[in-house]
């Protein structure tokens, strides 16, 4: 990187806080944007849960608070579907993707690889300012006639392709597609920047096999995003043409809505499903892999030992990435496909558990003979590992064609993917926050409040999402507006109440996190440059890192990222010169 980045340029309010090209500020902007969107998405899920627990009750107060969603104190069925759709879409793309990949990714990549900034700072700013209108369009879609999109986060046609199909298929769906297009544009710009920066801007001595695993996971996730998102772009363009134009890419003949036969003919909704899941499945790994990256960082910093099996982790990561691109059909087992293809997708999906298990087991094995410092960050990572285990167990039944046919579209699926991509990713976001907050803001978070946050969050989410598995086995379908509508579900209604209380309590516990976060911004104790005695390069600069990241020369890497209790030293930072070869099998005694 050229030297002008390192000089402390005078910056106005606008170039520093708003149209910043500094990766740290952009990372924080993403983080706060995700936090803002998470407040909405969580509130929507609470409305859903309250309705599901007590479908016959009226809620006059909620009705007055959300006049568009309720009628006479009852959540309207069509608005229920809008809330489901928007909760899923916003959480996946506008909270977890933004916080975990764009937020932490932007903040940490240059700091961990010893660079002054991202490879393309201007593109980085452009990427952030593309996500802002996307968020506004998503939120704004609640206020158009017919309300927000209601076809689920997967936006399957015909609901998403025919404006007159249902109340949630109107203008809100169009805005949903446009917002997603902006999101994809932003995410692609970000991915391009990540890949280029990681390959080209590493500091001297930092070979690929010396990169922290966080960087590896972000690298792989970015490549997956670049490969997978264009399929959704193509699908979105065709969907818009089907919606607003006369084409029939996804619409078959003979659809009747409101007594009128549609003119469309010859298309197939299956085509959309293939294109959507070609993105949709890799997207799961775009979210889960950086979560594991954070877990590896936290386990080493607070376990005081090198990561177990660094090289096998990297290779497993690459195999997971390749396999994740060719298993999408398992989302469509019941959509209709050649049984031979179904069999292939089933086998490929089950085989992805092998490299993924290597990653997860390396994470667990990294606790072997560790000197655990049970900080909030490590606590959340331990819970994350448990969640990978529980969620992964359910995944086996969904990957297997025969059991999936029964479980498909049930609450078993809802419970499974919440454990895998909601709990795992959110716990990683919390762990990353507890780990990097000192570097981000130059202050320390309160540890006691952090632990309280942990203990009040974990039981709720585990009970809530594991409970959903049982609802699913009992036959409750996802997207179901009224569980009382079926007699065979009534004996499970108590479980819906338990789940609502469990998840509600976990949601309320987030107030502690937010209070700790904002209180410490102002009043937290000043953070030292390396408060955790960690080894990676971001801890070799003051907290918070200055403009240009290092006040003087860039650090040079002389060793791997996780040298804790190796060669007699408690920890050896990556930039410490040492001309004696570090041992290759550094399991501490």
């Amino acid at each position: 990187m050229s030297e002008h980045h390192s000089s402390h340029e005078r910056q106005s309010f606008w170039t520093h806080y708003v149209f910043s090209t500094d990766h740290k500020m952009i990372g924080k902007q993403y983080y706060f944007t995700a936090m803002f969107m998470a407040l909405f998405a969580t509130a929507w899920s609470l409305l859903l849960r309250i309705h599901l627990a007590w479908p016959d009750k009226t809620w006059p107060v909620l009705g007055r608070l959300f006049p568009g969603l309720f009628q006479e104190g009852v959540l309207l069925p069509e608005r229920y579907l809008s809330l489901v759709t928007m909760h899923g879409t916003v959480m996946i793309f506008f909270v977890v993707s933004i916080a975990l990949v764009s937020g932490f990714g932007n903040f940490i990549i240059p700091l961990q690889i010893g660079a002054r900034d991202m490879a393309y700072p201007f593109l980085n700013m452009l990427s952030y300012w593309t996500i802002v209108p996307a968020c506004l369009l998503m939120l704004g879609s609640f206020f158009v006639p017919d309300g927000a999109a209601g076809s689920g986060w997967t936006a399957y046609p015909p609901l998403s392709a025919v404006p007159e199909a249902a109340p949630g298929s109107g203008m809100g769906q169009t805005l949903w597609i446009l917002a997603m297009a902006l999101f994809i544009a932003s995410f692609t710009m970000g991915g391009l920047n990540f890949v280029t920066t990681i390959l080209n801007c590493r500091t001297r001595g930092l070979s690929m096999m010396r990169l922290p695993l966080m960087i590896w996971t972000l690298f792989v996730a970015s490549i997956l995003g670049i490969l997978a998102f264009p399929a959704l772009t193509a699908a979105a363009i065709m969907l818009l043409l089907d919606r607003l134009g006369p084409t029939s890419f996804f619409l078959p003949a003979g659809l009747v809505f409101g007594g009128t036969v549609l003119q469309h003919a010859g298309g197939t909704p299956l085509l959309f499903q293939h294109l959507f899941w070609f993105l949709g499945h890799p997207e799961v790994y775009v979210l889960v892999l950086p979560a594991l990256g954070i877990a590896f960082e936290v386990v080493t910093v607070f376990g005081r030992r090198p990561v177990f099996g660094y090289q096998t982790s990297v290779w497993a990561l690459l195999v997971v990435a390749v396999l994740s691109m060719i298993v999408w059909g398992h989302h469509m087992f019941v959509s209709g496909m050649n049984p031979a293809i179904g069999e292939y997708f089933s086998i490929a999906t089950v085989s992805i558990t092998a490299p993924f298990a290597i990653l997860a087991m390396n994470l667990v094995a990294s606790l072997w003979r560790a000197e655990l410092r049970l900080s909030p960050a490590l606590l959340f990572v331990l819970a994350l590992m448990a969640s990978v285990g529980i969620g992964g167990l359910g995944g086996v039944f969904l990957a297997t064609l025969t059991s999936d046919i029964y479980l498909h579209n049930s609450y078993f699926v809802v419970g499974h993917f919440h454990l895998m991509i909601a709990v795992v990713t959110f716990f990683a976001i919390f762990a990353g926050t507890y780990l990097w907050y000192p570097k981000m803001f130059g202050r320390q978070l309160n540890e006691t409040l952090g632990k309280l946050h942990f203990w009040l969050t974990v039981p709720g989410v585990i009970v809530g999402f594991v409970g959903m598995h049982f609802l699913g086995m009992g036959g409750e379908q996802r997207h179901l507006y009224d569980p009382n509508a079926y007699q065979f579900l009534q004996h499970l209604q108590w479980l819906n109440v338990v789940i609502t209380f469990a998840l509600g309590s976990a949601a309320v516990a987030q107030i502690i996190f937010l209070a700790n976060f904002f209180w410490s911004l102002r009043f937290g104790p000043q953070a030292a440059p390396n408060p955790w005695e960690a080894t990676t390069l971001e801890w070799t600069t003051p907290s918070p890192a200055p403009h240009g990241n290092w006040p003087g020369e860039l650090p040079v890497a002389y060793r791997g990222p996780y040298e804790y209790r190796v060669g007699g030293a408690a920890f050896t930072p990556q930039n410490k010169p040492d001309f004696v070869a570090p041992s290759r099998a550094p399991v501490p005694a």
Partner: protein
Amino acid sequence: MSTARAIRAPQHGPYPIGLLTVLVTVAMLFSAFTAALLLRRTASDWIPITWPPLVWVNTAILLASSVALEQARRAARIGRNESVLNWISIGAVLGLAFVAGQLALWRALGNGGVFLASGPHAAFVYLLTGTHAVHVVGGIGGLSWAFARAQRGGFSASHDGLSSVIVYWHFVGIVWLWLFALLSAL
């Protein structure tokens, strides 16, 4: 541990990797469209349209623009900045002519009674020519940037940026040949 390895500098210019990721994105987009077309054409309503002869003229113009830009790259390599500017301008003007030609092609299709609604093949013709033209317009933007930089004499030492824009241009040209062949053959 060898010190030489420890202080090896892995830094290169950011362009080739950045370029590669852009090309991969474009390739994946048109692969998705291709897959969609292959799946959609199995339906019984697939009736291929006939191209207006203008499409051959447009294809020739796009190929010519690639040749002109290759000249620009060659001139940059031997440091003849004046010549770089001329060839970039010629390439960009040919690119604009291609986009105008594709719009004229749509008009010719419409005059021949072929519209977006005429059938799935016609819809793919409009969809793919349109999406492709957007990528050409992006390339013209890139060429304008390269022109401005060449005017300041920016490509005398290293012509990575110019090279990237031109490789992108060739790539979009190849995409057009692919789309044209696909839509003609099926």
